[in-house]
C-alpha cells in the first residue's frame, strides 16, 4: 500500500502543481487588478508556491519518519503566507488559525513519532498504540479529519484559488501518506486499534462534512467541507484495507479515490476562484443564474459538482462503489446515508448557482482563466468514462 | 545536655535577628546597628513600666506573656540535639499547635485593646495563618510519609543519608514550600517588610501598637524565638541525620546563622509583593509542597 501510494503521489503532486501554477499565471494578475492593492508581491508568491511543492515532495520522499515530520511542518510554514496573500482581515485570521492549529497538531505528531520510535526499541504494542493515536491526531489535523478540521474551511475559503486547490488536492494527500507510513509499521497486536480509530475518524469526518454542507451559504467553504468529507472517505477506505481478507478492491478504490478527488477538487476550486473574481463575493445567494450570464463557467461548475458527488461518469463513482461493495453492511449504510445528504446539499448549491435568473451581473472574465479547468474537466470525464466502461461490465477488478 | 541546648537556643535567638539586620546593612552599605542590638533593646524595654490602653481587660495584660510562654514551650520540645527528651514522643503537629497558641494570644490581646488598627492587623494575621496551614500540614505529611515516624524528632531527623539522596528532589520542593512559610510567619520580604515597622502594611506588628515596656520586650523576644524555631525546623527537615548531641546542635546553629544571612540577602534584593499577591504565592507554595508528596509517592 505504502509503495503504491507513494508512486501515485509522486506523479499526482507534480501534476497538480503544474496545473495550479499554470492557473496562477492567469489568475494572479486578474485578482491583483480586481481586488486592489495589498497583495503579496508576485515573485514572492511564485517562490513560496514552488517551495510549497518542494516541501510536499520532500514529505513524500523523506527517507525517515522524523525527516518526514520536518518536511510536513515545512509545508505548513511555506503555505501559511500564501493563505494570507491578500493581507486583509479574513485571510490573516485564516492564516493564524492554519499556522497555530496545524503546528500544534504537528507537534503532537512529533510526540507520536517519538513514541513509535521508542516502541520499536521496546517492542511493546501499548507504546505503538499510544504513538499511533498521537500521530493520527497530529497528521489528521493536517489532513483535515474531523474533529481536528477546524482550520480547513477558513484556510481553503480565504486562500487564492490555486493555493486552495493545492492545499486541498495535494497537501491533504501528503498528510494522509504520513499516516499510512505509520500504519504500515504497526505490529499485528496494535492493528485493530489503529483501524478502528481510522474508521471512526473517517465516518465522523464524512458526517461533519455532510452536516456543514447543508445550508452552506459560501461556495468555497462548501468545497472545503467537501474536502473534509472526502478525506473521511479515504480514511474509511484505508481502515478497510487492513481489516478485509481480500483488500485488492479497496486498495484500488483508495488510490483511484485519491487521484480523482485531487483532480476534481482542483477543477472546482479553480472555477470557484473564477466566480469569486467575477462576482467579488463567495455568497451563494448572490452568484445565481450562471447559465445565463457566464455559460462557460456554469458548465465547469455544474460538471465539477456532479463529478465530486460521484455521479456515474466520475471516477469517484467507481471508488465509492468499491467502498460500499466491500465494507461491512453497517459502514456502507452509514456512509451511503451521509453521502446522500452531501449529494443533496451540493446539488442544491450547484443547481441554484447555475440555473434560474441572475441576481448580480458579473464582471466578464478573460477566456484564459477557463483553460486549465476545462482541460481538467475533459481529462476527468474521459478517464471516468473509460474507467466505467472498463470496470463495470466485468463486475469487478 | 538537652536542657543546656534548649537554654542556649533561647539565649541565642536575638542574635539571628541581628545577623539578618547586619546582612541587610552590609548590602545597603551601612554600618548597621550591630549583632547584639536586639539584646540591648530587650534589656532597655524590660526596665520600663508597662502602659495599658484605658479600656483593656486582663486579657491584654496576660496576652504577650502567654504568647511568649507558648513559644518557649515550643522551643523546649524542639529536638535541638537531634532527638531525645520530649521531642521523641510528641507528635510533630504539636509543635505547630504551640506556635499557633502563641499567635492566638497575640490576636486576643490585639482585639482586647479595642483599636480598629490592631483589629485589622489581627484579621490579617489570622487570614494568613489560615493560608499557610495547608502548606505546613502538607509538608508535615510529606515528612511523616518519608520517615514513617510521627514524632517531632523522628519526622525531622529520621532521614538517613542514603534515603536523603534518593529523595532529594522531593525534599528540595518541600524546602521551597516551607521557605514560604518561614518568610511569611516571620514577616519577612517578600510577604511583609520589617522596615515598615508598625505601619499599615504590616501583618504581624500592627497588633503591637498599644504594647510597650516589658510586654513589647516579650513580643520582640517571642518573634526572635519564632524566627529561630522555624529556621531550625527548615534546616532539620532538609538536613540528613548525622548523629546526635553537641555536634548536631552546633551544625544546626551554624545552619540557622547561614539561613539568617540568606534571609538578609533575599530582603536586600527583593521588593515586597503586592498585598493581594500574597495568597497567590502561598497557593503556589502549597502546590509545590503537594508536588513533593506526589514525587515521593510515585517514585
Amino acid at each position, binding site marked *: 500500500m505504502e509503495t503504491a501510494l507513494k508512486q501515485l503521489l509522486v506523479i499526482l503532486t507534480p501534476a497538480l502543481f503544474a496545473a495550479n501554477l499554470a492557473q496562477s499565471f492567469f489568475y494572479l494578475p486578474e485578482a491583483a487588478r480586481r481586488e486592489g492593492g495589498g497583495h503579496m508581491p508576485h515573485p514572492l508568491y511564485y517562490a513560496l508556491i514552488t517551495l510549497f511543492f518542494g516541501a510536499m515532495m520532500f514529505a513524500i520522499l523523506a527517507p*525517515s519518519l*522524523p*525527516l518526514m*515530520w*520536518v518536511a510536513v*511542518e*515545512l509545508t*505548513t*510554514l511555506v503555505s*501559511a*503566507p500564501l493563505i*494570507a496573500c491578500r*493581507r*486583509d*482581515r*479574513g485571510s*490573516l*485570521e*485564516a*492564516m*493564524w*488559525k492554519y*499556522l*497555530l492549529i496545524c*503546528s*500544534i497538531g504537528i*507537534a503532537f505528531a*512529533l*510526540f507520536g513519532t*517519538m513514541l513509535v*520510535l*521508542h516502541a520499536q*526499541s*521496546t517492542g511493546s504494542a*501499548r507504546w505503538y498504540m499510544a504513538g499511533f493515536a498521537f500521530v493520527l491526531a497530529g497528521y489528521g489535523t493536517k489532513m483535515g479529519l474531523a474533529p481536528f478540521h477546524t482550520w480547513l*474551511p*477558513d484556510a481553503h*475559503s*480565504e486562500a487564492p484559488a490555486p493555493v486552495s486547490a493545492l492545499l486541498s488536492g495535494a497537501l491533504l494527500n501528503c498528510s494522509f501518506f504520513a499516516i499510512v507510513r505509520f500504519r504500515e509499521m504497526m505490529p499485528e497486536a496494535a492493528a485493530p486499534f489503529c483501524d478502528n480509530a481510522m474508521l471512526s475518524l473517517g465516518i465522523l469526518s464524512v458526517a461533519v462534512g455532510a452536516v456543514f454542507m447543508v445550508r*452552506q*451559504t*459560501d461556495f468555497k*467553504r462548501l468545497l472545503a467541507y467537501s474536502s473534509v468529507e472526502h478525506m473521511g472517505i479515504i480514511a474509511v477506505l484505508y481502515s478497510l484495507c487492513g481489516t478485509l481478507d481480500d483488500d485488492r478492491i479497496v486498495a484500488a478504490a483508495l488510490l483511484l479515490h485519491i487521484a480523482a478527488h485531487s483532480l476534481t477538487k482542483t477543477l472546482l476550486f479553480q472555477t470557484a476562484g473564477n466566480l469569486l473574481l467575477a462576482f467579488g463575493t*463567495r455568497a451563494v445567494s448572490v452568484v445565481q443564474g450562471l447559465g445565463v450570464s457566464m455559460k462557460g463557467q456554469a458548465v465547469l461548475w455544474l460538471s465539477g459538482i456532479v463529478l465530486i458527488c460521484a455521479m456515474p461518469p466520475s471516477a469517484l463513482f467507481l471508488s465509492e462503489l468499491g467502498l460500499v461493495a466491500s465494507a461491512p453492511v453497517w459502514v456502507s449504510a452509514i456512509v451511503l446515508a451521509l453521502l446522500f445528504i452531501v449529494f443533496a446539499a451540493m446539488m442544491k448549491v450547484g443547481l441554484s448557482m447555475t440555473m434560474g435568473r441572475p441576481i448580480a451581473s458579473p464582471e466578464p472574465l478573460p477566456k484564459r482563466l477557463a483553460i486549465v479547468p476545462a482541460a481538467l474537466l475533459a481529462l476527468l470525464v474521459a478517464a471516468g468514462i473509460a474507467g466505467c466502461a472498463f470496470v463495470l461490465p466485468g463486475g469487478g477488478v | 545536655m538537652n536542657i543546656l541546648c534548649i537554654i542556649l537556643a533561647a539565649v541565642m535567638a536575638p542574635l539571628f535577628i541581628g545577623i539578618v539586620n547586619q546582612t541587610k546593612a552590609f548590602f545597603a552599605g551601612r554600618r548597621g546597628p550591630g549583632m547584639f542590638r536586639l539584646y540591648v533593646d530587650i534589656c532597655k524595654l524590660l526596665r520600663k513600666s508597662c502602659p495599658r490602653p484605658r479600656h483593656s481587660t486582663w486579657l491584654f495584660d496576660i496576652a504577650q506573656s502567654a504568647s511568649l510562654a507558648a513559644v518557649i514551650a515550643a522551643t523546649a520540645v524542639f529536638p535541638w540535639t537531634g532527638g531525645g527528651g520530649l521531642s521523641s514522643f510528641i507528635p510533630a503537629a504539636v509543635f505547630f499547635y504551640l506556635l499557633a497558641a502563641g499567635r492566638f494570644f497575640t490576636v486576643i490581646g490585639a482585639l482586647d485593646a479595642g483599636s480598629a488598627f490592631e483589629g485589622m492587623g489581627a484579621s490579617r494575621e489570622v487570614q494568613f495563618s489560615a493560608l499557610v496551614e495547608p502548606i505546613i500540614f502538607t509538608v508535615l505529611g510529606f515528612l511523616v510519609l518519608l520517615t514513617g515516624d510521627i514524632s517531632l524528632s523522628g519526622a525531622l531527623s529520621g532521614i538517613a543519608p542514603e534515603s536523603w*539522596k*534518593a529523595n*532529594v*528532589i522531593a525534599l*528540595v*520542593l518541600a524546602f*521551597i514550600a516551607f521557605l514560604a512559610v518561614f518568610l511569611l510567619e516571620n514577616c519577612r520580604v517578600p510577604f511583609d517588610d520589617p522596615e515598615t515597622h508598625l505601619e499599615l502594611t504590616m501583618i504581624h506588628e500592627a497588633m503591637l501598637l498599644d504594647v510597650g515596656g516589658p510586654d513589647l520586650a516579650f513580643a520582640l523576644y517571642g518573634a526572635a524565638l519564632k524566627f529561630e524555631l522555624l529556621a531550625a525546623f527548615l534546616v532539620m527537615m532538609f538536613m540528613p541525620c548525622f548523629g546526635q548531641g553537641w555536634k548536631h546542635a552546633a551544625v544546626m546553629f551554624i545552619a540557622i546563622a547561614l539561613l539568617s544571612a540568606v534571609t538578609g540577602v533575599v530582603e536586600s534584593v527583593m521588593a515586597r509583593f503586592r498585598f493581594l499577591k500574597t495568597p*497567590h504565592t502561598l*497557593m*503556589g507554595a502549597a*502546590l509545590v509542597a503537594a*508536588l513533593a508528596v*506526589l*514525587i515521593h509517592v*510515585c*517514585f
Partner: protein
Amino acid sequence: MLTISEIAMALFLIADLALAGASRLKYAISLVAVQGWIVGTLPVFLWDWQSGGCPGARIWIIALVNSLVKGAALPMLLNYAVRKARTRRELEPIVSFQISRIVVFLMAVGGFAVGRLLHIHETTASELAVPVAFTTMGTGCLLICARKKAITQVLGFLVLENGISLFGAGILLEYGLVVELGILLDVFALVFILGIAIFQINRTFASTDTDRLNRLGDTHLMHPHHKHDHVHD
C-alpha cells in the same frame, strides 16, 4: 539518585506551575527561556559519563544550538514581537491563574500516574523525565487555550514543544544531527512567522486579542451585520 538532571526536572515542574500563574508577559517569556536552557543542555547531563566517556560532537552541537535557540533566540524574538506589536504587558486569562495552577498540578498527578502505568523508568534515562514532559505538554495546551492574547498562544506552543523535546531527551531518542537541527529550524521559523503575523494582525485588527479573530465561521454570511465588524477600541 541525585543527579543534576533530576534537579533540572524539578525546576521544570516549578516553571510549569509558575507559568500557569504568571500574569506578566515578560516573566512568562523568561520562564519559557529557562525551560529552553534546561531542555537544551539536558542531553549533556543525561549522558552516561561513567561508561560512555566524553560525548561526541553530535551531543555538544545539539546542546549548544538547542540552548542558544530555545533559551536565547526565541525569547528574544518574542520580546521583540511584544515590543513591536505594542501588546499590553499583562496576560489576560480566560481561566483564572489560580485554577490554571491547580489544573497544572492535576496534570502533574496524571503525568506521574501515566509514568507509573507505562513502567517508563525501566527504559528512560531519568525517572522524572516522562511525567514532567507530560505535565509540560499539558501546560502548553493550557496556555494556548486559556489565555486571550495571540502571543500567549505562541508561548504555549513553545512550552508544548519544550515538553516534547524533554520527552525525547528523557527516553534518549537519537535522530541524528540533521533531523534535530531540522526540527529546531522548523520551530524557529514557525515562531518567526507567527511573530510577523502578530505584527500584521495588530496592524489590521488594532488588537492582538484572539477573540477578535472570530470573523470566519459558518454563519457570518447569513448575518451581514456581524457583531465584530467594527473594532471596539
